């Protein structure tokens, strides 16, 4: 549909503007909220591309879980909460150079790539298909990620437990 194209432009613009806000806002809580807008825009683009499952998981995990934890951490930390602080330090020129290099590489590869030029409407992938794909062909990387998460979890508990003993 015609209007879908403009909605995608709208979401892309919202995503980029709020992402810029995340790195420039002087208030950490505002940065967190803008990150939420950015993640929500990504979910909107997923939805328009037919990746319904991915969009729902994006909202549930990234916004409903991780973003809330980030906001929670900002509110708990009095050094960064409620103050306007600069988001740059001595290393800003190096980080600028690094991010410009990444931008250049990505732009070059996007320009080089031949994208399919047909205009077939994207197929909606069901949750069942996504599940079969993960648990048949990609079971090994999936399990590896699970072990990684488990290790992080155990590590977090160890660190929290050590602090309690003192």
């Amino acid at each position, binding site marked *: *549909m*015609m*209007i879908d194209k403009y909605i995608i432009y709208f979401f892309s613009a919202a995503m980029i503007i709020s992402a810029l806000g995340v790195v420039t806002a002087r*208030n950490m*809580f*505002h940065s967190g*909220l803008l990150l*939420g807008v950015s993640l929500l825009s990504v979910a909107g683009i997923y939805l328009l591309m037919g990746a*319904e*499952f991915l969009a*729902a*998981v994006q*909202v*549930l995990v990234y*916004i*409903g*879980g991780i*973003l*809330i*934890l980030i*906001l*929670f951490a900002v*509110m*708990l930390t009095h050094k960064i*909460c409620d103050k306007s602080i600069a988001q740059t330090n001595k290393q800003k020129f190096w980080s600028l150079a690094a991010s410009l290099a990444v931008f250049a590489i990505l732009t070059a590869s996007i320009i080089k790539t031949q994208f399919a030029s047909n205009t077939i409407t994207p197929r*909606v992938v*069901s*949750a069942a298909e996504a599940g079969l794909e993960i648990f048949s062909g990609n079971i090994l990387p999936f399990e590896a990620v699970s072990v990684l998460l488990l290790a992080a979890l155990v590590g977090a508990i160890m660190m929290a437990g050590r602090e309690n003993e003192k």
Partner: protein
Amino acid sequence: MKYIYDIRLIFDFVFSLGARLWELTGLPLWLYSQIKIVVIGSILLGVISLAVMFLIWLERRLSAHFQSRIGPNRVGWQGSLQAVADIVKLLAKENITPANADVVVYLLAPMVVFAAAFMAYIALPVAPRLVVNNFSLGILYILSISSLGVIGILMAGWSSNNKYSLIGGMRSAAQMISYEIPLVLAVLSVIMMAGSLNLSEIVASQKNFFDWHIFRQPLAFLIYFVAATAEINRLPFDIPEAESELTAGFHTEYSGIRFGIFFLAEFANMMIVASIVTSLFLGGWHGFGFLPPIAWFLIKDAFTIFTLIWFRWTFPRFRMDQLMNLGWKILTPLALLNIFVTGIRMFIK
């Protein structure tokens, strides 16, 4: 089974008539579909607001009876117009913004909370085919959209620049993150039994009385009900707004209609929880004949809401550590065990 009062037929008729008339004007068709979205959204908003007004009256009357009082009975028949009078009062009140508040976040917070509650209704089927958008991922969509409400509560708590609001907001976030896990796990075991994420299909799988998931998944039902009561911050889990210690929690500084929007969102969330309980566990619109499906749905919904109100005026409030213990040490392991047993049972079959 066809009823003369199938509401969906009325909607279909009106919208196809509208499309015909629209074609006569020669305006582009995509504009019509956008107008249709706005009209459906307004109808939904109206229905929710009316239902919330009824619920406010019901809760006040019921709580009064639980405590051997009479409750509001002056405005209208048996006080039924009390909620209307309250809303007029809230609209007429001054909207105060605290001097040191973060104004933009402060003003956006109630909207975020309400939008999250309101958007969940889009995927909710109340009768066969009577749903705004029959998402194939219905229940997953509702769970993910309603998890956005916490952000609004955090925004309200932080931007008010008030210690009670801040503590209320943080408690609320901690509670919602903790209880979201057993809640989703309890829903998962029902999804395993039904073999679908679509709410219409989950309801369709409970056609016979003994196929209702409350009989096939009693533990999941209990876990869901407890976790959902905590998710919507109602007693015995209303620690985020515990009056005796936090005045009013995250919405302490809000007044006038902004407070009203928080209130509206709270009741809208309560109806969503009751509707999910009805759809997942109580067989949705399936009944015993003689009444249209939507009536059965509303009867079960009303009964669930009555139970939630009953909880509120019966149980004393939990302490914060008790709440966390219940969520992490009892409900989450039980929900995981339930999934495990369900999986084995399905594997053997």
